[in-house]
């Protein structure tokens, strides 16, 4: 299979922002049984349990289809995330309540 094209600028930004210095926590992602995306991407998502389901620092809720998007690193405002379940592109923002939210980018 052909190599996936990655966004080098985004990767460089992540490294410049201190990721290499260990400022961001890293997370090992496991498959939680989310079966709506191809097998190789399942670890990046999990089902949302509703308002009582707390999100980890590496997680954000997709506002379009209400699936939890997971990243292998702690998320911060300005990070880009993808929801493969509904094919939305998003940027992480700080919500009014101080929690991280995802804002759809068209």
């Amino acid at each position, binding site marked *: 299979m052909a190599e996936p094209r990655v966004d080098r600028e985004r990767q460089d930004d992540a490294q410049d922002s201190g990721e290499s210095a260990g400022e961001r926590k890293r997370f090992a992602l496991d498959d939680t049984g989310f079966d709506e995306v191809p097998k190789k991407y399942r670890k990046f998502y999990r089902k949302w349990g509703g308002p009582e389901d707390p999100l980890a620092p590496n997680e954000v809720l997709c506002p*379009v289809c209400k699936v939890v998007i997971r*990243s292998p690193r702690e998320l911060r405002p300005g990070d880009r995330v*993808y929801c493969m379940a509904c094919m939305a592109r998003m940027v992480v923002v700080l919500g009014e309540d101080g929690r991280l939210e995802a804002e759809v980018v068209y």
Partner: protein
Amino acid sequence: MSDDLPDLHVLDPDEFIRRVHSFEHWFEAVEGYLGDLEHGHRSDLEPSELPADEREELVSILCNYSVAETAALEASGGLIRIAPNQHCKIFLSTQVVDEGRHIEVVHGRLEELGVEDPEAEVERRASQSIRDFHDKLLALVDAREWDSAIFAQNVILEAMEFTVFAAHIERADPVTRDCLERMLRDERRHIGFGENELGRRLRADPRRRRWIKAVKEELDPLVLATFEQTLAELKMPRWDRPELGRSYLNAVQRLGLV
């Protein structure tokens, strides 16, 4: 670098769009939840005997679902011809397959409930509001109104189905619940496609908003009437219903259509 990405979110945005609109992506996505089924549900689930009044209500609800799914099937197929690019054509071809499957599942469930001729039953029971929506959606497709038809189908109709299915799942018998949970997974893709496609086009030309708002004003009452009827049949308390419409209202707000 192997295809097993350490971080999916570093993917180039164009590469992401190309991947998720492919038939390959669709096939790998649905194989997780559509294998080993019988009539769209797990084969080890025994259809339970429903009380007569509950069966009657369920048959009526499924008849409305059938018309909604038929509208989406026929419109998706027609939209392939006028789609502005190859990505959209390919995605819609996957939606056609999804919608055809949904009709098959709904009719299979009607047969399990003892309905001998599902097509005739749908004709007899489906509400006028969802039939009118079907006709108006196809008129938009026939008029080659891409933006308006995608809004009507993938934002209005799909949002209603997503919300109603989610509410129905909470109250359904195990077989119906299993069917709906699998259909709901498909609906996520349809909703996301519609919102993202429209969002990109509205960003490129905000003047399109005016036409879509007109379609929204015309079709909203029909969808709301169907929505209300189905939720009433599901015995959903009236005070819970505004919350259920929130996903549609949020989508409309994100697209700047309020």
